[in-house]
């Protein structure tokens, strides 16, 4: 796969605080790459540096090998976004398309198609003020993809959307990637990221924490955990093989298993006297990894590093 965007050794400081410390990643054509991290981790700063809205102190950003930002090829949905009030939906869409040098006639056709797709048919002549927040968000999304960008940056595209609209956005983003668009997506909603993304970059305090394909990350970091409901003694549970750590709360115990555990054979080790009202085995979700990192527990990570 060909990389559209290459970020290398990016560094940026505000005052004397280093907010980006040696960030490097790539976004390939036709893939959805997620940039994740808690609030204030440096996601938006990274994106703004890519967009040339800020300039990095060190490091390089190249687009298909070129330093210059191919603005007309990029679609950008910033986190802080809005629309001019007092103007018609179609006018603002065409203005954004014009700024990208996209032919107006084609832009108009595409705008109408997309408005219809997002359930905003007939709203093209409505004033922006009349739109609900969700509708506004859809218009912003349309504005970012109207000019058929080769590279799309979506900063928190799902925030404030209802599940139906989320689904619509997801589908559209997927189909764009399928058609070869390189997509950089930042989000807090881990389940969505887990579902959609091909690769991810997890950033915390301006530093890389995890970078790799979703499957690898899961394999690498997401060990199995076994959740048991029922009254059981802690030392019995801790005495079981392949158990790294046990968390008990009320009648629920969570057993974190080692990376190489064979689930089927491990189950046989459960003693018969155990009280099991419910039992589930699943991998640690991206969500949990995220929270773990964001709250500085670093439990999975250390283990993962040890095991890696």
């Amino acid at each position, binding site marked *: 796969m060909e990389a559209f965007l290459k970020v290398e050794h990016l560094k940026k400081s505000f005052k004397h605080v280093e907010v980006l410390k040696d960030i490097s990643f790539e976004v390939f054509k036709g893939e959805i790459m997620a940039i994740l991290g808690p609030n204030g981790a440096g996601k938006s700063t990274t994106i703004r540096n890519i967009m040339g809205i800020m300039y990095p102190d060190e490091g390089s950003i190249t687009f298909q090998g070129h330093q210059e930002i191919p*603005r007309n090829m990029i679609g950008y949905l910033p986190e*802080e976004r*809005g629309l*001019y*009030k007092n103007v*018609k939906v179609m006018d603002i869409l065409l203005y954004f398309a014009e700024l990208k040098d996209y032919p107006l006639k084609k832009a108009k056709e595409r705008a109408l198609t997309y408005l219809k797709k997002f359930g905003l048919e007939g709203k093209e002549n409505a004033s922006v003020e009349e739109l609900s927040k969700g509708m506004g968000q859809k218009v912003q999304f349309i504005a970012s993809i109207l000019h058929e960008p080769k590279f799309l940056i979506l900063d928190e595209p799902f925030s404030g959307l209802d599940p139906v609209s989320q689904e619509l956005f997801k589908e559209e983003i997927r189909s764009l990637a399928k058609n070869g668009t390189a997509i950089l997506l930042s989000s807090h909603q881990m389940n969505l990221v887990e579902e959609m993304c091909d690769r991810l970059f997890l950033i915390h305090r301006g530093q890389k924490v995890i970078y790799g394909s979703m499957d690898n990350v899961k394999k690498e970091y997401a060990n199995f955990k076994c959740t048991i409901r029922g009254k059981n003694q802690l030392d019995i549970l801790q005495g079981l093989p392949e158990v790294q750590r046990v968390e008990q709360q009320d009648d629920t115990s969570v057993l974190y298993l080692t990376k190489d555990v064979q689930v089927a054979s491990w189950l046989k080790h459960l003693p018969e006297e155990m009280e099991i009202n419910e039992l589930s085995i699943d991998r640690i979700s991206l969500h949990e990894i995220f929270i773990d990192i964001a709250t500085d527990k670093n439990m999975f990570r250390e283990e993962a590093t040890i095991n890696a």
Partner: protein
Amino acid sequence: MRNAMKVAKWEIKRNLKNKSFLIGLFLTPAIFLAFMFIGSFFGGSDGEEEISTRVLVRDELGVFEVIEETVAVHKLNWELEATESSKEEILDELKESENTAFILLEQESFENGVIPVQTSEEINPFFMNQVQVLEVPLKTLQMEKLGLTEEQLSAFSKQIIFEGTSIEEPATTVEEESDILGEDPLERVIPGAFAGIILLSIVFSGMYIFQSASQEKKDKVAEIVLSSLTPGELMQGKIIGYFILGMIQAVVFLGFGIPIALWKLDIPILDYLIGPEVLLFVLIAILGYLLFAALFVGVGATMADMSSAGNFQGMVMMLPFLPFVFIGPVIGDPGGLIAQIGTYIPFTAPGVLLLRLTFLEEWPWIEIIVSLVILGISIWLCMKLAGKIFKTGILMYGKNATPKEIWKWIRS
């Protein structure tokens, strides 16, 4: 530049489609003109109802015809009436009437040089001034009586004028100057007023820039727009767009103003407007606009909201009104020190320069050029600073920048 033009086009289109802008566009000149003409309506009606003064003359010298002529020449609102009645009768009559005066031209008083004038209790307050015009014909008569020749007469009646000549300046007689002023003060005043209207319109549209820049922040559109162009292009686009909007405002203003002025004032305004002065005046107005536009676009970008303007921002907003401080002194003495100081302060230069050039007969070219150079440099500087402030400020959402922060952006 192409991107800047797109922004400009958009700003124009957006505003022209905006109802509140359109209302403002037509309402501002309407209100302005209404206030201007309310005064003249009242003034006009006063003049029409002015009661003429009845002047009774008992002429023992045989100069009534000459007096009639003089009154006609000076267009005095007098009803002259020759009378033969006795002094006592007339004085009785005066007690009964209003706006009536009695001039007694007797041989004795004529020789003394003091001519008694009796007026009724109520009389035009300017009457005693008006009466003085009769001095000339009477004086002439007096001298004729003394048997002077025509030549002697004309030498006598000619006033003596002091001609002032300083060493550096070429000689200009007081007489000549007053001639020019008397001949055509409108030649300068009308282009001056024209440029004033343009300056005012574009300063107002400068205010719109200010609003537009802070609105951009409030609506959080800036970042989307900046993904397609540079902050510099966005800023230029706004300045150009609002300049054109200001010109539209000026055209609407003049579109209202010129026909009304033609109708009310009866002056061939258009003839005065077509002259080389207008070009310089318009240039000054445009430079003034660029200066304030740069200032406003920069400051607008530091504010989260129009309503949250801090002291610092408020002060900057007041700058275009600084020339008003100079209006009095400049009109009083267009060549004076205060006027010169005003010419050299960038923020007052456009306004003061326009005022001075309107009232000064001899244009001080060196001062004009120095002032234009100062303006040019200030514009360049302000644009540079505004660019820096705009770049950072426009993306700072939800809060106002402090002067300290702004200083930091400028230095970075």
